């Protein structure tokens, strides 16, 4: 895990954005990562081992990929509550297709396509109807979950395809599960998209001032749809990899993603108000949530207590970002 945190990709955005600004804003989340690692290393014996870090990386892979797409949506000032449900539905579709056709690893692009279509649905309803995104995606959350649970008949469906499983649990780089490697690649691409493409720029502009963007002729509606489609695509990809890692798709797949993805994005420092932050920061947020999950498990904290802690962390992160914002204005 330390390898991930210090991987060269980590410093890449620093070259593209003004160095000073980024360092100050990243300081707090990085400090939290350090404190968490130190705390769990002292309080548990099994935390600071290569084996455990490898486990954390495996657990965090899906969360990272799903969060990246959702980050663009939040950057744009909207919210996608349906990512967990998309993961569940695409996961169910993935095992079904695998068991029916045996196309093996080729199910991965298909899963991404499924996800993108679901995202496209979200985005179209949102952008064309003008209903708030949280309402639209809350509704689609229920719809997607319902379809998925019917597909699964409420049971976990297994599959056996070694090549496909290897996509997630194999280790191209020793001790780094492939699912985490995929996550890092997706992260690199996302950072590039955010900082170096028209799509990325429009996300910042729409989030910072939708009316300004519209007045200047930016096709706001179209790009809103694109953002939700991208969010769905990455959720679909994450779903396929999660299924590959677990060897099955069950009714509880993706159920913790709603809270965890929001928590990771906000803790990383992307503002829910839109217009500031970005996928480069989401990596740190995902680290914080993954370490917290893993460490609390090792400490033997009950999952109910964990829910309480994570909820508090999200609220604290939003409060902290507001304080930061106020300071920025005062300065």
């Amino acid at each position, binding site marked *: 895990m330390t390898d991930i945190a210090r991987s060269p990709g980590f410093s890449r955005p620093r070259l593209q954005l003004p160095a000073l600004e980024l360092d100050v804003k990243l300081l707090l989340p990085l400090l939290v990562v350090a404190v968490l690692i130190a705390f769990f290393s002292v309080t548990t014996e099994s935390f600071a081992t290569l084996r455990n870090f490898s486990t954390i990386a495996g657990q965090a892979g899906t969360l990272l990929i799903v969060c990246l797409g959702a980050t663009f949506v939040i950057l744009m000032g909207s919210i996608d509550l349906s990512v967990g449900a998309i993961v569940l539905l695409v996961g169910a579709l993935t095992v079904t297709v695998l068991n029916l056709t045996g196309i093996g690893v080729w199910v991965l692009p298909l899963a991404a396509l499924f996800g993108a279509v679901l995202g496209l649905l979200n985005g179209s309803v949102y952008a064309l109807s003008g209903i708030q995104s949280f309402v639209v995606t809350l509704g689609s959350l229920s719809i997607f979950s319902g379809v998925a649970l019917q597909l699964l008949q409420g049971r976990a469906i297994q599959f056996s395809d070694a090549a496909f499983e290897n996509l997630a649990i194999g280790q191209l780089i020793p001790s780094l599960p492939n699912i985490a490697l995929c996550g890092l690649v997706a992260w690199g691409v996302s950072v590039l998209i955010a900082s170096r493409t*028209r799509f*990325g*720029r429009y996300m910042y*502009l729409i989030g910072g*001032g939708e*009316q300004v963007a*519209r*007045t200047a*002729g930016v096709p706001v509606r179209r790009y809103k749809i694109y953002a939700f489609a991208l969010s769905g695509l990455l959720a679909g990809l994450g779903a396929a990899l999660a299924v590959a890692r677990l060897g099955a798709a069950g009714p509880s797949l993706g159920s913790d993603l709603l809270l965890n993805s929001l928590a990771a994005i906000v803790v990383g420092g992307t503002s829910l108000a839109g217009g500031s932050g970005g996928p480069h920061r989401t990596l740190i947020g995902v680290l914080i949530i993954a370490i917290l999950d893993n460490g609390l498990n090792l400490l033997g904290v009950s999952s109910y207590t964990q829910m309480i802690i994570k909820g508090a962390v999200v609220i604290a992160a939003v409060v902290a970002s507001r304080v930061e914002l106020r300071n920025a204005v005062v300065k």
Partner: protein
Amino acid sequence: MTQPLLDRTPFFVADGLSKRFGATRVLDGVGFSIPEKSVVSFVGENGAGKSTLFNILSGVVEPDAGTMTLGGKPYRPRHYGDAIGVGVSRVFQEQALVRNIPVYENLLLGQDDGFYRAGQFVDRAAMIAAAQRIADEAGIDVDVRRRTGSYDFSRRQSIEIARACLAPSILGDIAQPLVLLDEPTSALDQRDEDAFFRLVAKVRQRGSLIFVSHRLSEVLSVSDVIYVLKDGALVARLEAGEADERILHSLMVGRERVADYYFEQRQKVTDAQPVAVEVAGLSSPGAYEDISLSIRAGEIVGIGGLLDSGKSRLGKGIAGVEPPATGTVALVGQSPVHPEIGAFIRAGLGYVPAERLVEGIIPSQKLSWNFSLASADLFSNRLGLWRCQAEVEAASRFIGSLAIRSGSPNQPLSKLSGGNQQKVVLARWLQRQPDVLVLDNPTRGVDAGAKEEIYRVIRDLTDRGVAILLITDELLELIGLSNRILILQRGRIAAEFAAPADTKPSERELVAAMLSVPDEPGPHGAAAISTSDPVQYSESAHA
């Protein structure tokens, strides 16, 4: 200051009220007094400081300097609630009624403390009775139990005026209310207007009213005292008997116009130039109606009018930011189309909005991002990759050529002054070398130095043959820059003035054209409303 009215005790006194917003001084040492039981009016151009004065009096804005006393006691409200507490109430220009609740709840809003029994239970019968008393006293014909939204705009305005005028004295223990009325009659139809003036007379027996209106004849008929505001300072105080419309007009305007400031010697005759924009039959219900105009290459066509004239909406309609209901716009060498901003920008149009902080810039984001906002076609390639290097270089070029002070491409735009922010907005369009520019109040909130630089840029653009539509609240700017001036009144072109460099129209002429009574009723005219009113009437009678 020894007129007979002042024999009455001054009920409200203001002294040295001043307010700045950034570099702009909006109010400068304004002092006045309001006698007991009187009607005092403030008149002035758009931007003379009337709204800011009202905001200070009602606690919405705090003055930078100055004192106020009400009934002999110091008065310094921190927010509107403080003002209401001591009997100062206000009718805002935008309606502050909740539409989905009955009229009586609106009439008692914020004054309903006396109607709770045992803490939480509402004594509905008592509320309805009290509200009905207010409505009866005000002479407006409403059933207070009906939903507020079921009454038309004019009647709702009456309800709001009745609340401001009567609620403090009927419900509270306010002996002498002070009521601030901001353009109260602009939305009233004839019947409600009569009721309004009866109400004014009634309130005057108890307290005082302050009145702001563009309708000078109305001001003259109701006021005891008239103050004239110009550029944030009081320039005259007149008793009711000694004023007439002509005197008020000349006091409201009449500034020194410096031809050099607007580079008038650079203004060209453009009659022989080809037409660059042809607007035909543009209409948007409730905003403007059947507007046709054309602008030649290198020509500046100015549009003036009061705040409710619809001139800003017209600018948005022509640029396609808020596409009109019907009508077409043809840009140079293209066929007439329904305006749409995205397509128009690619076809060579640029639009500078009036509300800079809401529509013009994203203050929290970088200068270069704000600069390239409308130019994704120039700064990204076919794959959608952004050319960051080219963007920063282009932004730096304009920082130099427009003298955008203390600007660097990576700085958030919020760190720059209003004038320099506006130059960034201009640079956004200059970069695209447009054929047509629509400018809505391009120098609003901009200091004098930056103003002059913006005027120079505008002249440079006309030299290059850019056609410019200039919408502005500033009369001098309108006169100084324009080749031709159109005056809009309630969404229709009411007058057209040629404004060649040597024979510019005067401010007086333009103001008179803005205020004159139109021959035919406009979209908000009496004819439009009276048709719906009898229906309203019978419905409430049977309810």
